[in-house]
């Protein structure tokens, strides 16, 4: 595969300059917003075709997300349920933000990190190991060591892909996919029946529960409530911005992402930046895993490895256009979709949750398509104006 650089849109000869205007409008949010709207529209059509009412389905999904907690007129029991749902949504938002950062950070160096999955699990297992095997540490220290282990684990896993990319030019899309499966099968091996890290209950393929001193603080609600991970995720958004925009490292990474040849010509070590970009990206995904295990999972079962949280993180990064604010809201959206369509939160009488889960996968796919093919969005946008104003399509004035 060639040097695919899925980063900023490049002006292409065949496209009118209008592209640039579209990126500037509302801080570049127009294409993502339109893509989301279009994806929900098509998703609604699918619901309609298969004989369900899309409006009631979407409303039920929305009420399952807990976002209605923000409405002042929601009171009493409804409000208590909404709070619980919202806690869950924010709990899912946390790893989505972090795994999205793992994608976005590598994106800025011109690399496509599909390995968030593996990096997440290695971070998860590293933190789990600290939680179950390092005893008699006082609480803040135990939590910090656990989170640190998660970061190191993720960096290691991302770093392997980065190292291979830097030394032999092995394409990161392939290596990270392979590393994902190695982490997943390797993890299942560690905790399977008779596996080296299996917990004390010999009849279950799962680990022990981490010590209470390694658990993250819960600040809102109980059982399980919302842990402080969301603040770490928001802090990571800030760190991401600072590294990229305020450090030499970030400058080098962005320079390599824009044009590796030019960067090399001006003395920026391209290979080292490839390695660092993927290692740091892995660190973001690793801490996502650490937060999940220290925050609310507390242990692991071999069946847990099926979760595709980091794959959703890729969709989040694409929709958020690698920008911190965009990633935050995109993560909220996809977390809401996931929680709102879960079988616990969606009334089967209104819309079957097993369908809704797949519907949300479909919507994610459509969002990625439309964000990737912004030309299509722009075309539809122009078509709309064309219909309204009755102007021919070609005569779009190119503002500067």
């Amino acid at each position, binding site marked *: *595969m*060639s*040097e*695919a650089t*899925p980063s900023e849109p490049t002006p*292409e*000869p*065949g496209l009118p300059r209008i592209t640039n205007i579209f990126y500037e409008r509302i801080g570049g949010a127009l294409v993502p917003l339109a893509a989301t709207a279009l994806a929900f529209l098509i998703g609604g059509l*699918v619901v309609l075709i*298969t004989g369900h009412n899309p409006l009631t389905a979407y409303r039920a999904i929305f009420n399952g997300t807990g976002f209605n907690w923000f409405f002042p007129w929601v009171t009493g029991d409804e409000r208590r349920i909404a709070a619980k749902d919202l806690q869950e949504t924010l709990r899912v938002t946390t790893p989505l933000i972090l795994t999205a950062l793992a994608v976005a950070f590598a994106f800025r160096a011109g690399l*496509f990190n*599909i390995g968030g999955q593996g990096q997440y699990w290695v971070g998860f297992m590293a933190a789990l190991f600290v939680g179950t095997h390092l005893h008699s540490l006082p609480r803040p220290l135990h939590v910090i060591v656990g989170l640190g282990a998660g970061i190191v684990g993720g960096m290691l896993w991302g770093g392997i892909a980065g190292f*291979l990319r830097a*030394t*032999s*030019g*092995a*394409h990161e*899309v*392939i*290596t990270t*996919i*392979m*590393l994902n*499966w*190695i982490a997943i*099968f*390797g993890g*299942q*091996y560690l905790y*399977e029946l*008779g*596996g080296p890290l299996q917990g004390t209950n010999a009849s279950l393929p799962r680990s022990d529960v981490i010590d209470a001193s390694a658990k993250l603080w819960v600040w809102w609600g109980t059982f399980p409530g919302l842990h402080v991970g969301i603040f770490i995720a928001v802090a990571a958004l800030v760190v991401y911005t600072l590294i990229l925009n305020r450090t030499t490292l970030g400058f080098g990474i962005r320079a390599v992402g824009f044009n590796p040849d030019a960067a090399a010509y001006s003395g920026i070590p391209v290979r080292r930046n490839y390695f660092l970009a993927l290692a740091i990206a892995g660190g973001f995904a690793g801490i996502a895993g650490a937060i999940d295990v220290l925050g609310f999972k507390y242990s692991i079962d071999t069946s847990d490895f099926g979760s595709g949280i980091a*794959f959703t993180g*890729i*969709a989040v990064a*694409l929709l958020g256009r690698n920008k911190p604010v965009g990633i935050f809201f995109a993560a909220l959206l996809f977390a809401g979709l996931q929680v709102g369509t879960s079988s616990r939160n969606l009334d089967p009488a209104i819309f*079957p949750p*097993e*369908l809704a*889960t*797949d*519907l*949300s*996968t*479909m*919507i*994610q*796919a*459509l969002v*990625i*398509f439309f964000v*990737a*093919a912004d*030309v*299509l969005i722009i075309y539809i946008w122009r078509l709309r104006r064309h219909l309204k104003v009755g102007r021919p399509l070609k005569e779009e004035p190119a503002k500067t």
Partner: protein
Amino acid sequence: MIDRARTPRSVGIAGIALGIFAFWVTVPPFTTRFFGIPVVLGLAALGLGAAALVQGERRLGSFALGFGFIGMLGGLWAQGVDEATLKDVLTAGLLASTLRFATPLAFAAMGGIFSERSGVVNIGLEGMMLTGAFFAVWGSIWSGSWVVGLLMAMVFGALLALIHAFFSIHLRADQIVSGFAVNFLALGVTGYLFSDLYSSGIETNDVSRVPTLSLDFLDDIPGIGAFLHDVFGGLSLLVWLMFLAVGLTYVVLFRTPLGLRIRSVGEHPRAADTVGISVYAIRYLAVTTSGVLAALGGAFLSIGFVGTFSENMTSGRGFIALAAVIFGKWRPGLAFLATLLFGFGFALAIPLQREAGISENLVSTFPYILTLVAVAGLIGRSIPPAADGRPYVKQ
């Protein structure tokens, strides 16, 4: 003659042979039980590999190192296991199941080669396989015939591929991202339809499955007949179609004018355009073909093998096929060998777990580690078609 035997190339090849031999002596029919023999042979292989490396034969030298190392470890492990167990693990059935595991991978890998040779990166193979797997079952249940099942798989695989083609060729979206979205879309659509249409599960009896060809005449061949019968005697028709697909991919790509056009569009679209080849048309054709082939691979999983569908049943096989494409340097024959290697890895996991008590999960990581090592350059740089992944803008 002696001079030729001393070239780094021959040294490397000898190292590889010794490495294989280090393992071979410990399994039936030799079954050496003296631990020194595989160690000595393995070390000799390592030495020859290092010698070849020093003399500048990087590729064969690294290969010899790898084989020596694996041969030595494998040999030592095999010595720790009793002979009966070894016989149970290494059977002709193992080769047959290697072919079964390799079939879906090979179909998808051939698809990947078509697409990438024309200059369109296709990481959507996974999704196209999944689509094929679902619609094969759907067509098979709806019509009661596996032929319709296969046709439906091909049609819907092609449709999904057309989406990828449209986004990557006309809309010039990033091809990796578009392929990724294809995977998501297939996961969502097949899962949705599966839950909607078959909410109570699929009755395996309702699914018309691709027939198995019993080649009993193989048994009559003297000497190796029984072995051949065990390996090839009871394979699904789709396995034989896979062999055909691999052959056809080679012939079409390297022996026909169309193949020349596909490759030229993938190497230098501008030049191809200049001589009057329609870059877009060729790319659409190639990507659609890749969808059809990948869908056949998926169909093998559902109506060729288990006779049912489950959500996300391809579980990453499309990505392994993609790795096989790269491992095989975008060449049908080599990529097919790579899929055989992966197939062998998967096929080995089950009897190793059953007979030798080695964790199936652990063995399952081997093909991926192997790919990682391979892609990292032990086999020499694999160079993609020059225009792979680049959208073409007409002038």
